[in-house]
């Protein structure tokens, strides 16, 4: 067993349309040990989200190898990828992507409930996580009745419920006011440190990027440490 949580090499990604072939990633290599907190910056449209989608098993590279948590996700089929996403990865996005018809508590417990089928245990876990992100009083609120910062904290709690090895955060503070952004930033870095979870955060915020153990920049389809 390698001591890297993420190992990817030669990751290329092209988008083909009738008119042209767009090469977004042209050979990305990255190796991150367990518990490392890393940040990626780069100009808009350079392929940061695309790269995160590939690491999280939401999209497949055109070529290259990606191994996350010991799972070769370039070879996995849809069902295997689903299990991988449930166990290994927690996503936090710029938009919260909470489910509208579910309360905060239900949103957080759902990934655990889906994975284990044990409702009581899932609810208990979700309860603890919502307390931890400071939303103990908002359990039964639907997303429509939460502020932007609160929604993002619910999304963080949801990303953590299955105790994943990797948290992928794509501009998690991009939509928040300054105060909420600081709260979310503290939460992500704090939780990753406390639980020895690998964190990969894409951000335009230099302050947030600077707090990472390792900083990367994506430029011209390649990743370089800075």
């Amino acid at each position: 067993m390698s001591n890297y949580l993420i190992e990817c090499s030669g990751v290329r990604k092209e988008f083909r349309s009738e008119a042209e072939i767009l090469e977004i990633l042209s050979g990305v290599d990255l190796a991150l040990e367990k518990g490392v907190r890393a940040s990626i910056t780069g100009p808009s449209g350079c392929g940061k989200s695309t790269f995160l989608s590939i690491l999280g098993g939401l999209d497949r590279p055109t070529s290259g190898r990606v191994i996350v948590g010991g799972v070769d996700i370039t070879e996995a089929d849809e069902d295997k990828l689903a299990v991988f996403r449930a166990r290994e990865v927690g996503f936090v996005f710029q938009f919260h992507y909470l489910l509208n018809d579910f309360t905060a508590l239900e949103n957080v417990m759902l990934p655990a409930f889906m994975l284990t089928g044990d409702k009581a245990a899932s609810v208990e876990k979700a309860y603890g996580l919502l307390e931890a992100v400071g939303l103990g009083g908002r359990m039964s609120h639907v997303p429509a009745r939460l502020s932007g910062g609160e929604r993002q904290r619910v999304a963080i709690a949801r990303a953590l419920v299955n105790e994943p090895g990797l948290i992928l955060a794509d501009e998690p503070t991009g939509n928040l006011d300054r105060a909420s952004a600081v709260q979310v930033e503290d939460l992500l870095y704090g939780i990753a440190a406390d639980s020895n979870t690998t964190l990969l955060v894409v951000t335009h915020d230099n302050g947030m990027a600077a707090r990472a153990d390792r900083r990367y920049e994506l430029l011209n389809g390649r990743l370089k440490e800075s």
Partner: protein
Amino acid sequence: MRSAPVLFVASRFFLGRSDAAGSRDQARKALAGAVLSVALSLVPLITVMQVADGMIQGISARYVELGTYHAEAFPYASGDLMGALEAARASPGVDGAWLETQSVGVAFANGSREGVSVRGVEQGFLDSSSTREYLQVEYGEATLEKPYDALVGAAMAEKLGVAPGDSINLISVRKSYDGAFLPRVTMLTVRGVVSAGYRDLDAQWLFMRQDTAARVMPKESSRSFIGIKAGNPFENVNAARDAVVGRLPPGFAVYSWRELERNLFESLASTRTMLLLIMAVTVAVAAVNVASALTTLVQERRQEIAVMKSLGATPGDLARIFSFGGAVIGGMGAVVGAAGGLLASVRINEILSLLERIVNGSRRAFYAVTGGATTEAYRVLDPEYYLQTIPVDVPYGEILVVVVATITLSFVAAIGPASRAAALSPLEAFRRR
């Protein structure tokens, strides 16, 4: 995903929460519409199923109790009718056995003329309780006391314009040895006007005494036989036949009522099947509504479906969520529709007479205004062909089959949208809004 989370997610996707964000009501309206269309398609299906059953039951009962008996024993060669009658009456389980002589003739009265089916029957047959249950005496009485007494069916009496006490000339024709036709006139006195409640029968029957019929009707166009009743002819079709078979003197063939009226019952049953097939098409159309409502739902929920996938739901999980939802929609529609259909058919006689009253009332109003002449009253079901009142009989087993079939159909209709949901890319969630 296990079943519990599938149910949990499906219930939220389909029912939603009143306090949830956004008014993505398009799909919910479509879903409610789909439930309603399934329900509405089942109402006529269940009603026809049930009313047709009731009608077939009612018509069959009249044919069996008044026409064919439960079984008939025919002499061939030189069967001993009187001996067979004694033997049939003495057979265990037999409720009654009577001689009958049937023939055909033409009845004249008041200048009108009608072909009649002459039934020479025994008073005992007319008096038996199962006969009286279905044969209503409209005027006079159902007794054939004197040799030339007669009873006529209500529709026949109407056509001939006769009432109790009136005379009818019954003309039969016999072929002589040299081939000439010899008419014979028998003058009968109407003692009663009777009705089976079924026009077909009431329009052709003329009852007279069996002994008189055997004497006056030409042998070559008459047939005499023994009619037998035993037990419930619908519970055991062959009860009457089996009761006497082997007990009659040699020279008799015994047929059950179903054998005797095979064509009639087959045509009733196939008419019912035809109607049900037509109605089943409307259920199939409703299933298309289920499919299109689910397609709307999947379309509206693209992003949430993709989010579910990013949280670890498999394609199979999503397929189960939506196909289960389709089955539930079908089930709700089926239960509501079956209840509506049952209610409609329990009240079918009232509904039809209300319909007739509305139509006739508005027609009268129309003619009152226009000054036109009122034509014959409108009947939803022409009594010429149907029973005047429809007996109601609930076929629970068949209703259950229909409900289960509807749920299955909705489930099948959901497979398309469900597999579209299953195939949706998780990246769908993160496309620009």
